[in-house]
C-alpha cells in the first residue's frame, strides 16, 4: 500500500499529462468543450426547476428563488459525480493499448478521468457563481465548508471510479449496469427535493453518502448554516473507505489487467 502510493507519487507528472490529454481532446474545439461542460448541469437545473414548480403548484405556494438556487447548487456537483463515474468506467477499456503494452500505475486512468471532469465542474461552477450572484444568495463564513464538502465528493468519486473501471475491465456489461444506476440515482438523491421535505424519514435518504454532501452544500451556501455534522462525518468515512478499498482492490487486480482486457 505504502509502496503503491510512493509509486503513484513518482508518476504524478503522468497523471497530469493524461488529465491534460483528456481535457485537451475534449476542448479541442473550445466552443463545443465549454458547451459540453455546462450542458448536463443546465439540463439538470432546468428539470429541477420544472419539478420544483410542480411542488409549488401542489402546495399552492410561490416558487422561491432560494429553492431554485438550492437546486442549481446541488445539480452541478451531481453532474460532476455522474460524469466522473461515467468516464472512469471506460477509462481502462478505452486505453487498451496502454494497459497491455506499457507498465505504469494504472489507477492513473480513473484518477485522470475524475480530474478531467473536475475541470468541467470548475467551468460550470463559474457559470453557477454568476447565476448565484444574480439571485442574491449572499456571502457568509459558512462558505468555508464548500471546499471540504467538494473534497469529500472528489474522494468518493475517485473511489467509486477505481472500482467501476476495474470491474468493467473484467466484465463488459458492468458499464450498462452503472449507466442504469446513474440514470435513476438522481431520484434517490436530494437534488430536486430537500431531505427535510420527508420530515423524520429523511434520515433514510441521508444513508446515500452523496446526500449529506449535497444537502450540506445547499445548507452552507443558501441557508447560511453549518451542514449536519453527524451526517457529514458519515459521508466522509464512507468516502475514505470507498477510496481505500477501491485503491487496494485496484492494485490487487492490476497484474491481471493485461491478459483480461
Amino acid at each position, binding site marked *: 500500500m505504502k509502496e503503491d502510493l510512493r509509486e503513484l507519487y513518482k508518476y504524478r507528472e*503522468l497523471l497530469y*499529462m493524461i488529465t491534460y490529454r483528456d481535457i*485537451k*481532446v475534449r476542448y479541442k474545439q473550445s466552443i463545443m468543450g465549454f458547451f459540453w461542460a455546462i450542458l448536463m448541469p443546465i439540463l439538470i437545473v432546468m428539470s429541477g426547476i420544472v419539478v420544483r414548480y410542480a411542488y409549488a403548484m401542489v402546495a399552492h405556494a410561490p416558487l422561491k428563488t432560494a429553492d431554485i438556487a438550492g437546486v442549481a447548487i446541488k445539480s452541478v456537483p451531481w453532474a460532476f459525480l455522474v460524469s466522473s463515474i461515467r468516464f472512469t468506467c471506460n477509462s481502462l477499456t478505452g486505453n487498451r493499448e496502454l494497459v497491455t*503494452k*506499457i*507498465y505504469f500505475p494504472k489507477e492513473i486512468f480513473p484518477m485522470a478521468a475524475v480530474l478531467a471532469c473536475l475541470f468541467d465542474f470548475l467551468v460550470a461552477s463559474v457559470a453557477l457563481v454568476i447565476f448565484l450572484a444574480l439571485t442574491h444568495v449572499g456571502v457568509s463564513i459558512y462558505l468555508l465548508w464548500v471546499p471540504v464538502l467538494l473534497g469529500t465528493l472528489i474522494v468518493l468519486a475517485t473511489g467509486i471510479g477505481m472500482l467501476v473501471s476495474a470491474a468493467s475491465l473484467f466484465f463488459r456489461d458492468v458499464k450498462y449496469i452503472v449507466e442504469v444506476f446513474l440514470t435513476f440515482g438522481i431520484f434517490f438523491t436530494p437534488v430536486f427535493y430537500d431531505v427535510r421535505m420527508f420530515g423524520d424519514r429523511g434520515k433514510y435518504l441521508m444513508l446515500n453518502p452523496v446526500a449529506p454532501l449535497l444537502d450540506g452544500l445547499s445548507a452552507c451556501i443558501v441557508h447560511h448554516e453549518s451542514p449536519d455534522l453527524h451526517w457529514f462525518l458519515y459521508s466522509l468515512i464512507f468516502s475514505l473507505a470507498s477510496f481505500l478499498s477501491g485503491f487496494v482492490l485496484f492494485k490487487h487486480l492490476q*497484474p491481471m489487467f493485461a*491478459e483480461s482486457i
Partner: protein
Amino acid sequence: MSDVSLSMEHVYKKFRKGEIYNSLRDLIPAMTGKMFGGDELDAKDRREFWALEDLSFEVKRGEALAIIGRNGAGKSTALKILSRIMRPTRGRMVVNGRLSALIEVTAGFHPDLTGMENIFLHGTILGMKKREIQGKLDQIIAFSGLDDFIDTPVKRYSSGMYARLGFSVAAHIEPDVMVVDEVLSVGDFVFQQRCLDRIKAVIKAGTTVLFVSHNLKSVTEICDRSLLLDHGKTLAIGDTDSIIRKYLESGSGTAVPEEKKSVHISQVVVRDAAGEQATFGSGETAWVDVEITARDFAEKLAVVIWLTDDAQYELFNTSTERLGCTPISLSPNQSYRCTFQLQLNVAHGTFHVCAAIHRYDIDKTYDDKKPAATLFIGNTTAVRGAVNCFPTVVEHGVSGVGSETPIVR
C-alpha cells in the same frame, strides 16, 4: 548495486486457452451452474497451456541478450513479465534500475494531439520527467526528422512518420535496462539503420539490452548472447552464432509432403563439405540436394531453385534445364535426385533457399517450397548489403596542392 542487472529464475506463465467469462451475464449462470454440480466450468478451466516453462537467465550490466524463437514461442510473454505488465504464475525476476520497454512505440499517442504534445505525453508514459523531455526535445525532433510536422496533429501523419516519432521518443530515455521487441520492423531502411545504431550506442553507454526480433541480422549485430525459446521452453542459451544455427536447424524438416500432388519435392538439404549445415561464411561453397518423387506419370520436368533475402526479394534463380540437364521424366513412385553447387557470394544476413518443380513448355509448377531451407551468413565486416563482390582497395592516396604523397599501388 550488483553486477547482474536483470535476471529471471524459474519463471512459469500459464494462460487459459478457450473462452473466459468477460461479462456478468455469462459468469453468474456459470457460477450457479457450478454450485449445483455442473461440470462445465471445470472443463473450461482445464484448457490451459504454459506460455513459459522454467525460464531462467541472467544478464549482466551492459550486456545485450537476444531472445529468438518462432511465433508463439513465448518471447513477448517473457518481455511482458519483465516489464511488469504481467505477473508470472510462478518464479521470480529481478530488475536492477529503471527499465524501459520499446514494445509498442506508438501506444501512448493520441491522434488528436500534435507531434509536440505527443512527445511530452508519450515521454511521461514511458517514465521520463517533464524536465528531462524538455532538455532532449531538440534531439528527439532531429532524430525523428519531423521538424516541419511537429505542430500537426499526428492523425495526419503517415504510419511511417507515426512510428518514427514514437521510436525517437523511446530511444531517448536513458534507462538502465532496455527491452526491445520488434520495433525495428517499422520505418524505411535508413531509419531502421539509424535505430540499430542508436541501440548500439545505448549499449556502449552501459545500458543492458534485451532484444527480441525475427531479424537475425540485427540480432547478430547487437547481441553477443542469445536464448532460443520454443513453445515456452528454453532450448538453448549461448553465443549468438551457435544459437542461430540451432534455430535454423530446428526449422527444417517440418514440412509434410502433400500426397495429392502428382510430383512433389520430397527432400531439400543444404550442406557443406562436412554435411548438413545452415550457417556459412560469405563466399563459401554450399551444396543443395533436391529430391523429387512422383505419384503419377510426369514428363519434361525441371528442378528450379532460387535464393531470396529476408524481405522475400529474389536474388538469384536457376534450374536444371537452364544448367543444361535433360528434362526429367518419372513413372509412378520413382524419385529423382540432383545436387546444385553454389558459391555463396552474398553478404552477412539471412537467406532462404526455395525450390520448385516446373515444366517449361506448358509453364506449369507442380510443387514449390518457399522456403525449403534457411541459410545464415556470418558477420563480415568488409561488406554490407545483399551481395559480396569481394572488394579490395588496389589504389589509394591523397591528392591536391602541396600533396607530396605518391599514389600507392
